[in-house]
């Protein structure tokens, strides 16, 4: 087990190397250049140097005059030593900005994951135990709708209904207009109110796939011979379903839920941007559109690390929950 984990981590480092190389190359090739925007602004000031000179000077100071590969290895050397640099867009150290914005993303991710589990697993189990019934069709159809809805469309509909028509929530932002005047409890409630629609969006668009996953796995287990054995033993139907069937369904479920835990830190780029929630997703979106290479590189490498960690966690959990699997 220990050897396996070490082997996997070494392998992950290799993957990370190539992932960051590709990301860096892509970012350098993007048309949104921070330097050009800056040069444009600076050169329009009265008595300033011409645009070309500004570009050359800024490129030199930001290290963009180097070829892509050289630039990458410089970035890699810094990254490996934990020096993530300063964000160009936000003009603060990357790590400081990251610390500011990760909290709200994590809270959103954690709440919607819990809601997802609480909704998806029971509904999936019910749909499977009542296969081909009206309940099953209703659950499966709504799961399909949830999966098929694009986030931006669904979020807009929610805003239209609950913010514009009913006026229950603000359309965007994390705090209301008079946030500064509220006491601690009021501040908390104000933030919570602003998170309702984003969390609802996140939950509803992602609950469907987990529900279907639960249903499929549960069905597979329910048709297994050992479920017939359990019934033949004369166990009550509740025991058959929860003690025998659901336990075995838990194996794949724990694996994918465990694997999605690192994703709690990745933020939700589309949802946060639509609701203007200052989380890691929205911040990265702003950084990327501004051509802020240090922040974008940091965020995208961070996502890559989270994905690799997620996969590793799933594989380890698989061995932990399933007595048949022994990693070696």
């Amino acid at each position: 087990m220990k050897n396996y984990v070490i082997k996997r981590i070494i392998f992950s480092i290799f993957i990370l190397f190539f992932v960051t190389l590709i990301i860096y190359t892509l970012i350098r090739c993007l048309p949104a250049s921070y330097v050009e925007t800056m040069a444009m602004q600076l050169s329009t000031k009265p008595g300033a140097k011409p645009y070309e000179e500004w570009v050359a000077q800024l490129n030199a100071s930001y290290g963009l005059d180097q070829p892509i590969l050289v630039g990458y290895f410089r970035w890699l050397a810094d990254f490996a030593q934990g020096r993530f640099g300063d964000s160009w867009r936000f003009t603060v150290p990357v790590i400081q900005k990251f610390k500011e914005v990760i909290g709200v993303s994590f809270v959103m991710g954690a709440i919607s994951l819990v809601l997802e589990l609480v909704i998806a697993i029971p509904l999936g189990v019910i749909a499977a135990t009542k296969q081909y019934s009206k309940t099953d069709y209703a659950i499966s159809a709504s799961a399909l709708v949830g999966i098929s809805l694009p986030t931006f469309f669904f979020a807009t509909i929610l805003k239209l209904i609950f913010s514009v028509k009913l006026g229950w929530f603000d359309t965007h932002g994390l705090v209301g207009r008079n946030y500064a005047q509220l006491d601690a409890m009021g501040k908390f409630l104000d933030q919570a109110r602003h998170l309702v629609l984003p969390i609802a969006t996140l939950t509803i668009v992602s609950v469907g796939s987990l529900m279907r996953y639960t249903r499929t796995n549960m069905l597979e287990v329910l048709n297994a011979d050992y479920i017939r054995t359990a019934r033949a033993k004369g166990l009550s139907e509740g025991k058959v379903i929860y003690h025998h069937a659901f336990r075995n369904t838990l194996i794949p479920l724990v694996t994918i839920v465990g694997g999605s835990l690192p994703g709690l830190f990745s933020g939700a780029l589309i949802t946060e941007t639509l609701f203007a929630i200052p989380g890691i997703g929205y911040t990265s979106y702003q950084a990327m559109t501004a051509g802020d290479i240090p922040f974008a590189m940091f965020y995208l490498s961070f996502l890559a690390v989270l994905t690799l960690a997620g996969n590793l966690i799933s594989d380890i959990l698989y061995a932990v929950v399933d007595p048949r699997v022994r990693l070696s």
Partner: protein
Amino acid sequence: MSLRKETAGGAAKEDYTPVTYDPQYILMVNNLKKYFPVKGGMMSQTVGHVKAVDGVTFNLKRGTTMGLVGESGCGKTTTGRTILRLSGEKTGGQVLFNGKEIYDLSNKEMRAMRPKMQIIFQDPFSSLSPRLPVGEIIGEAVREHNLVPKAEFNDYIDKVMDNCGLQPFHKERYPHEFSGGQRQRICIARALALNPEFVVCDEPVSALDVSIQAQIINLLKDLQEQYSLTYLFISHDLSVVEHISDTVGVMYLGNLVEYGKTADIFRNPLHPYTKALFSAIPIPDPNAKMNRIVLEGSIPSPANPPSGCKFHTRCANCTKRCQEEAPVQREVEPGHYVVCHLYDK
């Protein structure tokens, strides 16, 4: 099509004469039917039925073993499961276990009855829950039904396991750590721990290799004596059935075509299908000439069985009557029943 619609959901309830309970029989099966709906079309409506079991009648004496043979897909397994009420509701007929119609019992009464009637499945690899240790697999239902006092529980499980050739330390292990033969012993121990009267053995040895088959068969025979069990032994291996059974039933396409004492059936098979089936038993002598009766064609679809006698499409002795009229079960010699027009007096 309209005719099929009327019979949708199965045959009419009154197409058999109800039997009355005879205490010498632990199990009385009377015209048992089990149809599975075939879904199709736009709205996945029922477009027909697979007649997996289509009128099976036999009685099983206490402490004996009945072998049930037939080719793949003839409904042996469904018969076994339907007798134990393990594949949903029956379509028609009676199943009297100790004189009680098991399909009339409430779910609660049925659960209480379960320990008395157990089953050993064909595949010991899939019939054991992979997440439970063996001790729990064997003991769970014993605890559930309060069969032994708590203080004696552990000793009881050890004793059952010992009877089935398992060691006490096996209790902590998981099914995947055992070989096929040992797993089948676990399945047997699991069934026996409930102290059953009647056990359906659904091809218990066909997934095992030959040397292990003999061990398991002998184990089943020993246990039968020890616990005075009644077996319904489902198999397609005729030599195994001949070895273990007191009576034998031969199934073809959902029907029990012939049924009688093992010796009678093997020495004097009457039904043309039984004759063909038994002619395929290998003779352990390379010089012996085999007179194999090779059946023409393949087994018809149980969703759309032939009219009259279901076997008429492949029968060498087929007459016009066989194509039109379904034969009924008749007793040709004492205890030897056959469903064939050839033996009408």
